């Protein structure tokens, strides 16, 4: 029976993320270094093989990590593709502020796209419901923006551990000419060999963070000092409690009849649109405290997003239509 002792001989070399040499055996990277190496490989591979890639930039923590990985992948060159933000116009003002200052600072090219037509017709989640609102302001807007830019590959920050249907998503996720995903007809994906062959009008969604967990993302943000939107940190904020979740209030027009604003010390676990993304009560005002909170909470982060709970399998349905 071959059962070796725990890896007692493994120590870390300062400065270099990875394991120490040990004769005759492979050297192992620690888990973040291993994920980083894989993600950078994916980013470079897609940038090399697709004529016109774009990076979906959602401004959230996962996007921040993906952006840092792209900086590393092409250093000392600039990121060789633009960033695309689908702006529903219902995003938190802090997100937009952060987006503009940070992308400017790192010299990334930013494209902002809105479904103007739907917005002019007054699309909002209160009238349409989250499903239809997301369909118009996110999914349709995304497909329009991809078509308008002629992008044949789009990087997204989705992780397989976020939600059950994402567990089966490929790293290179094939989309037909309507941007749709067919979960039963995915290309097999072996080793780190990705198939980038597509016809005109077809595209690939590329997920460099597929194998990262929420904790990995936070650990990496901590290790790498990656700037994130301040909404992730707990602070006293003006909010109301609506259907059991904490909704931030930026102006009195956002109040529903009978609601009253209160100061709540809270933070966002994931960033979406103001009306549909709830905050959580929290004292975590630093990254280590967020990590600490996370490991004691044990609740999945998408729980506070209304859209996943509309019906069983709702995320899978949205993804089939082209949602990220």
């Amino acid at each position: 029976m071959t059962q070796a002792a725990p890896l007692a001989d493994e120590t870390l070399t300062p400065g270099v993320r990875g394991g120490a040499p040990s004769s005759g055996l492979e050297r192992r990277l620690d888990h973040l270094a291993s994920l980083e190496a894989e993600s950078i490989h994916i980013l470079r591979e897609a940038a090399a093989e697709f004529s016109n890639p774009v990076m979906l930039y959602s401004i959230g923590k996962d996007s921040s990590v993906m952006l840092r990985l792209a900086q590393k992948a092409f250093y000392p060159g600039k990121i060789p593709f633009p960033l695309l933000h689908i702006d529903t116009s219902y995003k938190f003002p802090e997100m937009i502020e952060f987006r503009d200052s940070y992308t400017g600072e790192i010299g990334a090219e930013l494209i902002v796209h809105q479904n103007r037509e739907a917005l002019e017709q007054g699309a909002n989640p209160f009238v349409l419901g989250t499903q239809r609102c997301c369909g118009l302001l996110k999914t349709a807007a995304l497909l329009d923006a991809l078509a308008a830019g002629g992008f044949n590959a789009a990087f997204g920050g989705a992780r397989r551990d976020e939600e059950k249907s994402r567990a089966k998503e490929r790293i290179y996720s094939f989309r037909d000419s309507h941007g749709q995903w067919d979960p039963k007809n995915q290309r097999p994906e072996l080793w780190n060999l990705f198939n980038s062959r597509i016809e005109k009008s077809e595209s690939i969604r590329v997920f460099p963070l597929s194998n990262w967990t929420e904790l990995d993302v936070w650990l990496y943000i901590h290790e790498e000092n990656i700037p994130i939107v301040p909404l992730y940190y707990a602070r006293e904020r003006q909010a109301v409690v609506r259907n059991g979740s904490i909704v931030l209030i930026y102006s009195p027009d956002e109040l529903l009849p009978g609601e009253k604003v209160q100061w709540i010390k809270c933070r966002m676990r994931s960033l979406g649109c103001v009306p549909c993304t709830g905050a959580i009560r929290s004292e975590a005002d630093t990254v280590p405290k967020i990590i600490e909170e996370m490991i004691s909470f044990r609740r999945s982060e998408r729980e506070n997003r209304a859209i996943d709970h509309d019906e069983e399998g709702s995320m899978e349905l949205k993804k089939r239509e082209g949602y990220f």
Partner: protein
Amino acid sequence: MLTFEASERSESLAAFLEADLQKDLLRFTTAGSVDDGKSTLIGRLLHDAKAVYEDHVASVQKSKINRSGGSFDFSLLTDGLRAEREQGITIDVAYRYFSTARRKFIIADTPGHEQYTRNMATGASTADLAIILVDATKGLLTQTHRHAYIASLLGIRCAVAAINKMDLVDYREEVFARLHRDFFALASRLGIPSVQCIPISALAGDNVVRRASGNMPWYSGPTLLGHLETVDFRQTRSLDAVRFPIQYVIRPDLRFRGFAGQLASGTLRSGDALVALPSGQETRVKAIVNFDGDCEEAFAPQSITVQLENEIDLSRGDMLVSPSYQPAVSRSFSATVVWLHADPLRVGKTLLLKQTTRLVKAHVRRIRHRINVNTLQHEPAKQLEMNGIAEVEVETNQPLFLDPYAASRATGSLILIDPVSNATVGAGMVRETIVATAINQKEGHFPSLVTELGEVTAEQRQRRHGHKPGVLLLGDRRPLAKSLEQALFRNGFEVVILDASSLAPAMLCTLLGSLYGSGLLVLCTNASLGPQDLAELPSEAIFRLSDAISTGTPNAGTDKRVTQYALAFADKLRLSPKSDPARRES
């Protein structure tokens, strides 16, 4: 999972972060058939390791479906897609993530029904360890053999047999002892070096995360999770040499040229000598450039950017390697192929092949035999159906830089793509190059047609011969080749005949490359070379009998006519046709 008491706060938080950052990552795959209780096992593992979010547990409790026969259906924690829930089967590889105080884990959960081979090969391709489920009430089945075989084929070196449903055999030690013996025999036959058998009940939770001392006092080994947390899954290094496939060239301005890629094997330090393939040019590492500052050393599988000391010809698809131990450079090799697509593999059909960062045209020249995954017997085969495994001979239009899969997963693996449908249709593991490459290794040259072989330059050779080299493809006209040889020789050309009828394509290319590189006119007969094969040569250096015949002139194919055409072709290769008449015999 991650237990963390609020009272221990900041000090232990720092300690936790420190410890967590040092954890390594074990990727494993799970194999089992529909009724082995695999989903239940994974659900149990995740649940008992506290790696399942409370809201997921709540949504399972709320669900209308419960197939488990127990109060809680653990399999629902992992079955992701609607179709699967409706049909009660898992149709595709799903990846799960969890972490304990000691390690991080990625599970490639592979479903066990008719598309099994394809899914398991996919899951196993990135895994270091395989859990193979064995139903204690049934013993080792055909599928157990299949699972263990695929794991060994994909290069997994640690196998765990989880002997499940021990509750249904009254937790009897003799049942476990028999299966333990059987599984060890199987693993040793397949050459899997690290093996562990663990008696469990996924339904009851025995020996998965919690010890089942009450039910199985006779078992003193680790629990399944205990084993996963401690097993040394590092592979013995079989390839120390550097393999660095160039993935992307970073060129922000004229001063900087960096070669980016994921180190496939070996360790790289600044100052190290390297050889570039296919050019054969020598170089040295000037710096390993990093976003966080240059680093002295990098090792596989890190993604790195390298600056070289001299300007050499290097682009995506090329490879930097250790000068002392180079990969085989070959267009012809044998491989074990797993077929992934409903349209079967056909001999001779043109496919695309991706290996490291190289994409080339390829076809399967011959199926040596199919491997029956249930009996491991070799069977003759004319084609290969989906989920079939076969040993085949592959030929490519460009050379690949290859190591056997057994020595290096990264440079010995390949995928096959249908050029029409763009589907990924096959996965291959390189066994060996078909033409002995020892000569190439020793001499440091490769069957690339334009490589200079020695110290004498092409110009020097051309000056001596008075002409540039060329290749004349004469089909099966051997008598014509002989008369042409005389005619060309008389007219001052250095000329040689190469008959390809008994040569493997890679050997033909090596010879053709050598002769061409020596500045000769090569009269080549019986060579089945396509336009792609000679793509490296300038078109004015190639004469094709078929082109001469297709001019439409009457009697174009006669020896006399072809000789005229060939002499006219050769005259254009002269350095200065009129200036050196002394070399001509009148």
